[in-house]
């Protein structure tokens, strides 16, 4: 890349194109902070712009220009690039100008990689630019970021920017080629149900598996399963909604496991264990051994509880639930 030079020029803001911004990566930003800063100390750094016929294209400084417009300025001193430099170089000027002063959010990284991919081979992007953005040099990761830019709607993008959606959950949506319509539904649900990152992954995975197996759409599943009703139920607290939704999903995705657990814990409940004694099944019943937990204050209490336990004949009935007659 050859060095470029520019001259300072007062430019009417109306001549700067804010709709066509091929060199800007900013996404999901607020203007309040920069507007406040300009009000307080004025414009510290001039935007870099490029003349194109009778208008100017922004190379760096979209947020500054939007803030100036909001503040009612009609002119700005811009650094106008003298040479007719190619788009890739404008893109790199913008990238390196930004990278020294701020962190990019995931959507912005996606925009950068996507724009670079219009001019550079993917191998070069992987080798040079992914590490620059703090990403590992891995083709599937590049693919995901390209998809974020090109295949994800604004509703989901905003969840990403606000860090309300885990990258793992996002990766599932990408890897599994979720339809655009379903992405919108997921965005709606994730906006309305405050799921933890783990629950997000489970929600996506279970609902996807069920729909794939039953050959039904996500919307149809959510309606038929009653999940929609739970989400729309205004009398339920957020916590109760999540609990019910996750329970429905688990029941639908793992009917045999769900029934086995229910059967097992009903049986344990009926046994009438002494206070402070509990019995639990191994996770998914996969490991061979069940566990008993006894809490006690001293040895005397422990002996008493063990004595009570040895008298409970029903303990012999504990076995794998699928072995029940």
């Amino acid at each position, binding site marked *: 890349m050859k060095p470029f030079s520019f001259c300072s020029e007062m430019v009417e803001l109306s001549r700067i194109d804010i709709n066509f911004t091929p060199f800007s990566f900013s996404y999901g930003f607020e203007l309040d902070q920069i507007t406040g800063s300009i009000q307080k100390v004025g414009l510290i750094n001039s935007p870099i712009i490029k003349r194109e016929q009778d208008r100017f294209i922004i190379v760096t400084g979209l947020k500054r220009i939007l803030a100036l417009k909001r503040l009612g300025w009609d002119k700005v001193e811009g650094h106008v690039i003298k040479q007719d430099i190619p788009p890739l170089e404008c893109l790199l000027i913008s990238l390196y100008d930004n990278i020294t002063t701020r962190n990019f959010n995931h959507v912005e990284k996606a925009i950068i990689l996507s724009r670079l991919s219009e001019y550079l081979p*993917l*191998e070069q992007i*992987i080798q040079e630019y992914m590490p620059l953005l703090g990403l590992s*040099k*891995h*083709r*599937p990761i590049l*693919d995901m970021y390209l998809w974020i830019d090109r295949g994800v709607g604004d509703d989901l993008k905003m969840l990403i920017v606000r860090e309300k959606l885990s990258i793992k959950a996002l990766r*599932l949506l990408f*890897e*599994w*080629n979720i339809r655009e319509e379903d992405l919108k539904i997921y965005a709606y649900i994730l906006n309305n149900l405050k799921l933890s990152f783990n629950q997000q992954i489970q929600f996506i995975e279970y609902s996807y*598996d069920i729909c*794939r*197996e039953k050959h039904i759409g996500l919307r149809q599943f959510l309606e038929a399963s009653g999940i929609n009703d739970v989400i729309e139920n205004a009398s339920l607290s957020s916590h109760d909604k999540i609990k019910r939704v996750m329970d429905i999903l688990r029941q639908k*995705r*793992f*009917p*045999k*496991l769900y029934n*086995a657990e229910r059967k097992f814990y009903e049986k344990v409940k009926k046994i009438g264990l002494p206070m402070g004694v509990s019995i639990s099944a191994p*996770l*998914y*019943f*996969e*490991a*061979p051994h069940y566990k008993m937990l006894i809490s006690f204050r001293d040895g005397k209490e422990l002996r008493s509880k063990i004595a009570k336990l040895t008298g409970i004949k029903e303990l012999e009935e504990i076995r*794998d639930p*699928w072995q029940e007659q």
Partner: protein
Amino acid sequence: MRIRKILVEEDAYAYPLTKKILNHLRGIPIEVVKKDDPRYNNMTNYYAPYEPAKDIIHLMAYKGAFLKPCPGTKEYICCKYQILNIGTNCPLDCSYCILQAYFNQPHLRIFVNIEEGLQDVLDIIDRRPNEIFRIGTGEFTDSLALDPIVGWSDMLIPHFSIRKNLILELKTKTDHIRKVLLSPYRERIIMSWSLNSPFICSHEEHGAAGIKKRLEAAKMCQSEGFLLGFHFDPLVIHDNWKEEYLKTIELMDKYIDPSRIIWISLGTFRYIPILKDIIIKRHKTSRVLSGEFIKGLDGKARYFKPIRIEIYSYMYEKLNDWYSDLGIYLCMESDDVWKSSFGWSPKDSNGLKEYLDKRVVRFYGR
């Protein structure tokens, strides 16, 4: 199978096997590549794992160990099999194949220094004459899918057949048995086929021979004096699975003499998490992900235990109805699943190894 290109690493050129393969594939474009060329060393940097290149052969001199223990896990009972590492990846394209996720490069890699490496392997075997080595080439690739091009069977069978403390198992889903049958050796060479239900075979095992063809090939090998092995792995729950698997057992009855089967393994479908992504992306109509999968003790997804027990019990019963001494065993299962499905268990991996080694001795002597 159509080969589009051959990559030859610089130091692979000197090996006779390279010359033999290039001669066989005359006319196919060749690209000479450096050993440390990053494009071919860690392909995931460049290729997403869902973009395999099953039409590119990569000839290389392998620097690692040629004999490796099967990568079992301590949480489940493993048969302590040994893998003879002759190459990686497979020209067949089974939807459920772990190799799609297992290696970080997508080509059909052939280790052209195998003859050199074989000497080390045989030294290891000869140094331990009291041990029985059950060795197979069908774990990281199909044993015979590339045999018409590479001629592995010509190379390996003479060395293995003459030794008394091993068996060599050639496991395949093809009917590429011509070279094997031309060999004069029969002793200690087990011809094995992976089997499944006709439904799974036609929907999931892309590029593989049909069940009937596999069994016809097996029959031919058996009539030529080879012992046979069969592997129902992965068993997959699908619509009418009982009837479907029974069809395969009935076909076995039609073609195969059960008294000359050394073993039959059973294993239900299991997968590491990334394989699910690959199956969804690459095999859109695949049914193998349907069903109740839980996270197993080894971190792999596997069917919920009573489902596994049901399918194993069913297969065990039907196979035993056919013939009661088939050497049926479970691949990577727990002691309690063994007991619930078969009514007995080898207890641990050593027990299973002993059980299978005894069958080797019974069929071949010491």
